[in-house]
């Protein structure tokens, strides 16, 4: 129930934003994360951005995944 989906913010209007995830665009409520900016990745829970996602840490996971893929080849 505490599911969170990472969205990339593409537009901000006041306390509302439009975000994209998996090719889907949705409205996101920004009142819990006012410092969010266009281009940021945010974790969205039930329509609200609850935290920014650190792109470097996200990249670290992607690197490990690529490592695994090259090892498995």
């Amino acid at each position: 129930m505490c599911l969170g989906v990472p969205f990339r913010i593409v537009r901000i209007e006041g306390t509302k934003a439009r975000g994209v995830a998996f090719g889907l665009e949705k409205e996101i409520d920004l009142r819990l994360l006012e410092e969010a900016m266009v281009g940021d990745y945010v974790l969205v829970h039930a329509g609200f951005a609850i935290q920014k996602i650190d792109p470097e840490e996200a990249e670290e996971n992607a690197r490990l995944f690529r490592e695994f893929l090259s090892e498995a080849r």
Partner: protein
Amino acid sequence: MPAYSGSFSPRLDEIVSLLDREIRSPLNLMEICGTHTVAILRFGFRSYFKGRIDFLSGPGCPVCVTAPEDIDRILALAERGVTIVTFGDLLKVPGSGSSLAAKRAEGCAVHVVYNPLEALEIAARTKSETAFIGIGFETTAPLVAALVEEIVTRRISNLSIYPLLKTIPTAMEHLLSRMEHRLDGLICPGHVSAIIGEKPYGFIPARFNLPCVIAGFEREDIAAGLLALLRQIKAGESRVENRYGRVVKREGNPRARELIYRYFRPEAARWRGLGEIPASGLTLRPEYEDYHILRRVPVPVLPGREPAGCLCGRIICGLNSPGDCPHFGRDCTPAHPLGPCMVSSEGSCQAYYLYGRE
């Protein structure tokens, strides 16, 4: 390039090596969050480490821990003509007999929403008494607070909430102080921590001398969390460690917490399986009590009944595994669930049914 050796990550190799050479196993580890239970089963961690790590589920599925008597009161509100607005997870969860899904089939007004603020449009449409069922942990509580904020500022007269919000650290403390099993470490929830940060878990190492790690939900996140736990166990350390730093900041989300406590205050809450725990729930502050549906439409609390022979209450506390229940996979399946842990997509029983049967 190394040949594929059957393990799927360098972190797993290190975990296996620690278990083989340096740590006395089997280990008992508890994951609090229901989404972690699903991830551990779905990605095969449970079967991969069978006999070496026992994963115990904790009270981290909000609808599973909602007491049957609280579900009964929601059903009573629906019967009295209140329009119920809820997250979909709650629909099929049984109270002492019936469920919201059954009430809806009988003609009661029950609306399922993705975002709590959708309740505003529903109330504007129905014009009759409407209640949003606020079930969830700290992740969801700020969203319910945002709904209260909207109701108050827009002066909406026919919309109120039923606050059944619960807080995780209070329940963990209660559970750990009554734990019947030996525990070696804890995996702390990811998205609850995005709100509360690292500090509220400090009592786990301080009072119970247990290592605990905040983890994410991808396969590599679980591997990273397990490895961090095992390294602490090997070193004889116990501290709060955050391995989900891309989302969980040390201080959490202070703005979200400020919004929660602007409208809510801690109060005793009833948990399925755990009973009443002081200060483990959130209810409306005195100045906003008029927005509590029970102030407008009072319904009595009657003693709730668990489904006969259902072990959900013990499974929630990590005292039993779904396979111990005589109903599991026989007369209790996701299509015909008896207890909440089989109903919810993050309940332990449903996760074991879908991913964990051997």
